[in-house]
């Protein structure tokens, strides 16, 4: 778990003074060096591995065996990249990712934006753990949305694909209202501070030339802050990986696959193994 890559800050906000933060209980400092490159230092002064990708600085307490996952759309010309900014949530980092993968709560938590009653049915969709990439994928997810994006005018049926390329990161591909045929990319990068506390860094790569940047940020922060109050009240606080505590329905297939995948990788930071 220490060998995974984790987001630890926005690259655009770094300075020479550095930012003190925490990764899995260990204090770290994220800063710029004299050449303008990002550095991450552990509390004991050890230089930690660094990547700068997708607007964020990434690091690891251990020795990552895998390169940071790819998001090919991040190199596609014409997209606008949106640094949404950090939000701290008193919940398990895994709960934050799982909530991001859920569609069924849209009409009740994101009322009149991502969903609305009586359009509450989650149609059948496909979920798989892709062997080659070793990622969780949900495809052919469809949902009626009153205002799917800042660039949407009125209600549309939106198509989604969800991807979990790393235990605390998820990438969402979603119908792009101004450009049918392309996908908008919305990500949730989660920095685990403790097993029940995390900093969440949403980021987006959108085709939208019209909407001012502040509107795009506000839209995504609105959505995420509606989730925050729910996340902070989930019980148990840690994500149960064994059955017995929570009963999934068919709409929760992505969550079931995510939990199974975490368990297969023995990724238990923020998880609860035996139902209590």
């Amino acid at each position, binding site marked *: 778990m220490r060998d995974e890559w984790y987001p630890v800050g926005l690259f655009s906000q770094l300075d020479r003074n550095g930012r003190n933060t925490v990764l899995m209980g260990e204090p770290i400092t994220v800063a710029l060096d004299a050449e303008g490159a990002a550095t991450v230092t552990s509390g004991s002064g050890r230089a930690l591995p660094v990547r700068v990708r997708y607007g964020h600085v990434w690091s690891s307490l251990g020795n990552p065996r895998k390169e940071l996952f790819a998001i090919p759309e991040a190199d596609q010309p014409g997209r606008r990249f949106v*640094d949404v*900014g950090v939000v*701290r949530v008193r919940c398990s980092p895994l709960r934050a990712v799982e909530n991001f993968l859920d569609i069924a709560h849209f009409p009740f938590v994101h009322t009149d934006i991502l969903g609305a009653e009586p359009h509450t049915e989650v149609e059948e969709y496909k979920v798989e753990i892709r062997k080659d990439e070793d990622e969780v994928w949900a495809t052919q997810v469809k949902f009626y949305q009153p205002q799917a994006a800042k660039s949407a005018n009125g209600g549309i049926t939106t198509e989604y694909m969800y991807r979990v390329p790393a235990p605390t990161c998820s990438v969402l591909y979603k119908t792009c209202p101004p450009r049918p045929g392309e996908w908008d990319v919305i990500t949730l990068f989660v920095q685990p501070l403790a097993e029940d506390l995390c900093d969440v860094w949403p980021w987006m790569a959108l085709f939208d030339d019209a909407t001012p*940047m502040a509107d795009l940020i*506000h839209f995504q*922060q609105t959505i995420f*802050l509606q989730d925050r109050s729910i996340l902070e009240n989930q019980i148990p606080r840690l994500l149960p990986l064994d059955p017995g505590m929570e009963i999934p329905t068919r709409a929760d297939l992505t969550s079931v696959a995510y939990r199974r995948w975490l368990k297969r990788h023995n990724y238990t930071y923020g998880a609860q193994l035996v139902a209590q």
Partner: protein
Amino acid sequence: MKLYDYVLSPSCYKVRLMAALIGVKLEIRPVDFHPGAEHLGPELMALNPAGSIPILEDGDLILTESTAMLAYLAAKAAPEWLGSGAPEETARIQQWLSFSHRLTASLGGARLHEMLLRPGDIAALQAQGIAALRELEAGLVEQGLRGMRFLASDRPTIADIACFPYVALAPDGGILLDPYPAIRLWSRAIRGLDDFIEMPGIHRLHELNPEPQIEPGAA
């Protein structure tokens, strides 16, 4: 009327909520407060040297205090929100309007610390927030004994709108509202007003199904 607005700011929400309740249309100008700190940039500092939002612009008038904005909106479109003019009611409205700044400093400070990682002494902010909530709870209980559901009257005034958002969002700063039944009833009464609007963290009341009609003697 143009509002320089941040969607997660309870002070900005006060103005949006007041305008919605009395049917005033606002032109919203989103400000990248977080992460961009646009409120501290040259354009907005020229409008408001205090570097705070909201800012309300209406012709030559520029307001930078949310309390003044509430009074302005009400005076323009719905003066009944300013109270009846009775001495005690006028005094109570002013009392709670001033009190609302304590909520901003304490509950608002705790929320910024816990949510957006702003610096602050979280234990002190939470303690001050709890002290303010207890005072508000006592005030609402006393109003209840006078037969009044709102802070200064039996109808909502700008004082209720000034105090409501930071109170409703106290859990964002790690302060639970469970111990305050009068505050919870008051919050429900405000959320039940016609044309009430939400903000992230403040949910609308769910529509309740009609009571089942039970015929007398049918059970």
